[in-house]
Structure formats: structure tokens, C-alpha cells
């Protein structure tokens, strides 16, 4: 794992990617810092982070797009997978490298609250909370990006898909709050999930008949529920989607609330996506 971590770190800083990432992140943070703190004479640094969050749309793909896709493309995964290193070790090494570059960029921006503290009083707890939350949030996006990168051998596909995924994660709350009470929406959501289950089954068994049967059974159950007990559908889509509302969790930190539940949530979110990544690589070997 450490060999992979070291190589990835070297790659970030021997190519442009590491510098571009850090420069871009610090620049954007600096712009918001000037606008929201210096020019508007406000000591509330956590607003800066809340504004920078949108930048993850670009930052996450930059960090993760080539991590695993490039290995598949250059066939260097043959070296990694035939070495005495576990797949988990490979994935963790890559994840920690991306995470470390993010941490470096984040530490550089610490200079801004320090500047603020020289000229006035700052809400230390809120700022530290923001940093912890922001770091965890960033790692969630990195884990998602890494997972996407493991599924393709094309960097561009990986980057665009990561962009879309981060966008959806950021928008979940907005979508949920406006549509969760709607019965038709929930039903449609349930049908899509049923379809996905059938497709997943088809992908694994390549048996059209059984997959079709499964979908028909699922549709029948949904129909019965819809006419007999429509109450089940209320909030169904909303509750499911809420599981991915990373932004809501982050807002707790920004308010200076150090919520252990949110920390656990973030860490489990990261672990789940890293586990998915390991599964994708393992599955390719069995295919």
C-alpha cells in the first residue's frame, strides 16, 4: 500500500495535476476570501467554504480521473494485480494519495483564517469544524471519483461521470425537498429501482427470461401496494435520496456542531465507495 501511495504522490507532483489542483483550489478560496471576508469586512470564514463547495464539481474529477482508469488502459494493472499486494491495498494507496493532495491544498488555505485572527476575533470552533467537515466531504467525492475511475479505462469518461455524480450529490437535497411529497414521483422512483434490480440480475446471469420474470413480480408487488396501501410510497424516494445528502451533513460542521453521527456517516460513505471500487476490480478478474 505504501509503495502505491508513494508512487501516486510522485505522479501528482511530477505531472501538472497536483500543482494545478492546489493552485486552482487556493485561488478560488482566495477569491471568495477577498470577496466575503476582506471586502465585506466579515470575520465569518465558514461562508468561504460553503461557496467553494461547488468547485468540487471540477476538483474531484481532476484528482481521481486517471487513478485507476489509466492503469487499465496502460495494462499496468497486470503488474499491480500480480504483485503480492491486495486489491484493498491498491485502492487504499490510491485513495490516500488523492486525499493527501487535497489535505495539502486545504492546509495552505489555513493561512486565511490566521490572517483574520490577527485583525479581529474569529469563531475558532466553527472554523475548525468547517475544516474537518470540508475535508471529510472532499474525501467522499474522492471516493466516488475513484469508484467511477475503476469502471472505465477512459479518463475523459471518468472525469465527466465524476462531474455528474458530484453534481447529483450536491443537488440531492434540492431535488428531495421539492419532490418527496409527490406520490407519482415516488412511484416512478420505485419502478426505476425495480427496473435496476432486474437489469443488475440480467447483467450477472445473462438470462433474459428470469430477469423479465423478476421485473414482472416486482411490478406486481408495486401495483398491489399502490392500490391497497399508497401510504408506503410517501417519502420513499425522499428517504432513500436523503441517504446521499452529504451537503446536509456538512452544514452541521459549518455551524460549529461537532456531530459524531455525521463523522460516522462520512466515514461509512467513504468506506462503502472504496468497497465498491475493490469489488469492481475483483469482478473484472472473475469475468
Amino acid at each position, binding site marked *: 500500500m505504501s509503495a502505491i501511495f508513494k508512487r501516486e504522490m510522485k505522479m501528482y507532483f511530477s505531472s501538472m495535476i497536483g500543482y494545478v489542483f492546489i493552485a486552482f483550489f487556493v485561488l478560488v478560496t482566495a477569491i471568495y476570501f477577498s470577496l466575503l471576508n476582506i471586502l465585506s469586512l466579515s470575520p465569518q470564514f465558514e461562508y468561504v467554504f460553503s461557496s467553494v463547495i461547488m468547485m468540487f464539481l471540477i476538483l474531484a474529477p481532476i484528482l481521481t480521473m486517471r487513478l485507476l482508469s489509466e492503469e487499465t488502459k496502460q495494462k499496468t494493472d497486470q503488474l499491480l494485480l500480480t504483485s*503480492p499486494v491486495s486489491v484493498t491495498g491498491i485502492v487504499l494507496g490510491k485513495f490516500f494519495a488523492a486525499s493527501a493532495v487535497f489535505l495539502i491544498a486545504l492546509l495552505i488555505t489555513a493561512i486565511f483564517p490566521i490572517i483574520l485572527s490577527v485583525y479581529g476575533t474569529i469563531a475558532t470552533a466553527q472554523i475548525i469544524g468547517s475544516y474537518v467537515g470540508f475535508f471529510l466531504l472532499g474525501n467522499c467525492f474522492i471516493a466516488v471519483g475513484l469508484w467511477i475511475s475503476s469502471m472505465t479505462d477512459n479518463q475523459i469518461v471518468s472525469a465527466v461521470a465524476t462531474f455528474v455524480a458530484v453534481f447529483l450529490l450536491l443537488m440531492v437535497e434540492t431535488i428531495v425537498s421539492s419532490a418527496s411529497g409527490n406520490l407519482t414521483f415516488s412511484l416512478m422512483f420505485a419502478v426505476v429501482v425495480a427496473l435496476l434490480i432486474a437489469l443488475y440480475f440480467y447483467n450477472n446471469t445473462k438470462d433474459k427470461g428470469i430477469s423479465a420474470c423478476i421485473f414482472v413480480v416486482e411490478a406486481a408487488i408495486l401495483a398491489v401496494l399502490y392500490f391497497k396501501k399508497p401510504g408506503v410510497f410517501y417519502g420513499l424516494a425522499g428517504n432513500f435520496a436523503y441517504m446521499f445528502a452529504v451537503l446536509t451533513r456538512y452544514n452541521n460542521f459549518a455551524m460549529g456542531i461537532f456531530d459524531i453521527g455525521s463523522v460516522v456517516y462520512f466515514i461509512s460513505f467513504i468506506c462503502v465507495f472504496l468497497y465498491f471500487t475493490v469489488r469492481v476490480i475483483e469482478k473484472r478478474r472473475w469475468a
Partner: protein
Amino acid sequence: MIEVNNLVKNYGKYQAVKDISFKVEDGEILGFLGPNGAGKSTTMNIITGYISATSGTVTIDGHDILKDPKEAKKRIGYLPEIPPVYMDMTVTEYLKFVAELNGVKKHEIKPMLDDIMDKIKITHVSGKLIKNLSKGYRQRVGLAQALVGYPDVLILDEPSVGLDPKQIIEIRDVIKELGKSHTIILSSHILSEVSAICTRVMIINKGKIVAVDTPERLSDRLSGDRYKIRIKGDKEAIVAAFKSSDLITETEVLDDVEEGAADIIICGKEGTDPRETAFNIAKDKGFVILLVKSEKLSLEEVFLKVTEDAENGVSYEETAPEEAAEAEEAENK
């Protein structure tokens, strides 16, 4: 020692490897031969643990590649078809990374890499970025990578592809040298290479083993007792005399080389020596024999014959140990 048992690999409905079993003893160099798509690379990828078999087992020195991957993989050095090199690293950086990946102790890395680069003759390019190297040198870096950690077993997938003739000979010598201390499996399209390096050849076609033996014996067994003879005299009379003999099963007329003499290839009936028969015929008819030469199939011809026969349902199983010993004894006499 490598032990492969009942290996099967399915890609969907397509069966790439059909129930392959074999053993490679310590210090042996086994050559994989087969047309494109025969399942050579797939088999190698399974042995090294890159992909998993549908069923069957692979053990390296008693360590199962699936149940005990770390120990098994430590013992294998693998050079895949396309050398798995990182274009944006220098040769030294890359080999150092491989050493760390293999868990080589820090103070052992430098002497090990110096030794390996010296062996493969890439010391003078050690500071170059791999993307700036020619295909031949990339191939060598790939081979060097397989040696890092001094594994007991080397799996080389077409190690001489992309090298110039001089380099091919060098690489062959390197592999032969390595063969003294390693167990090696290598695959190749170049048959002369296999017969020059390998102690044993395995011909695979359509995912099945069609023949296993030493290169010499394989050629012996398939060609039978074939001799080229040159006889002075009237060509038609000679051919007619040989064709009418019961003891000669096959007569093939070749183009004339010498004025007034005919060149033919003859095959004797089982249990007879065609040289003797030829002598007797010549004595009876008053011909003069100028030349008798054993005519063995080259490995190319063996390969074609075996793969064709396999398609027609004929198989060449490995000779049983006793039989092989007898054959060897007979040869020595």
C-alpha cells in the same frame, strides 16, 4: 514447482481454456506454443493470478494462487504480453517501485536493481523516462521488472517480441542463464526460439493441450523413420523399385540435385529400418547409394501437423515415463 490442475476458463459461452493440467518441475524451462487465440496468455494470466479461473487450481511451490495469493505471487515474476511499465517514470524509479511493491527490504533494493539492470543490460538507460525508450528496451525493462525480488518462478509471455535479432539472441542467453536457477514458463510464436531455449514444449490449440514433450522427441515421434536417400541411376526405375517394395510405406520424389542421381524420401514400415531396405533394394537392382540422411520434421512442421491433427481428433499424449526412458536408452545405443 508449478502445478496446474484441470484449469477451465469461460468467457460467457466461449471456452478459452478447456481443462488443462500440467506440472513444471524446478529448473525446467517449459515453452508454450500455439496459434493466436489458443489460450496461452489466458493460461499465463491465470497462473499469475491476474485473472481467475472458472474452475481448477494453480499452486506455486505448494501455495494456491487463490487461497494464498500473497505467498504465491511473491514467488512469481511475470512479464505480460505488453510490458506493464509506467511511461512517466524513469527506469530506476520504476524498478524501485516494483521492488517496494514486492516488499523488498530497503537496504537490499539498490544492490538488487544494480545486479538486475546489469544482467539485462539496461544500466545505461536507467535515468531515462520509459516513454523515451524504444520498444526493445521497454521489453527489457519489463523483463527486469519480472526479476525484481528474485522470484523462483518466471512467467514470460513472448519475451522476445519487438527485439532486433542481436537482442533476441542476448535475451535468449539471459533466459537460458536464468533457467539454471529459476523455473520458467515462456510462450512464443518463434519456434526456433522454443527449441533453442526450452527443455520441454507444450503445444496448445483452442484451449487444449495437444502435445507435450522435449522438442527433439516431439519431432522424432511425429516424423517417424524418415530418410532422404540419393541414388545413382535411372530415376523412374529407382522410384518404381521403391514403390513396389512392401517394406517401404511412403515414397516421395524430390527435385534432382545431382546429375544422374535421384533424391527421394522414404518411410519404413513399423519395425523395419528403411536404410536396410534401401540397401537391399539397391543391391538387388544394382543401384549405388550416394547419400542417406535422417529427415526430421522441423518444429514448424511439427507444430502445423499437431495443430491440424488436433482439429481432426488425433492427440499426442506425453510418453509415459518408462516408455520415454526406453526411447532414451535406444537412442544412446
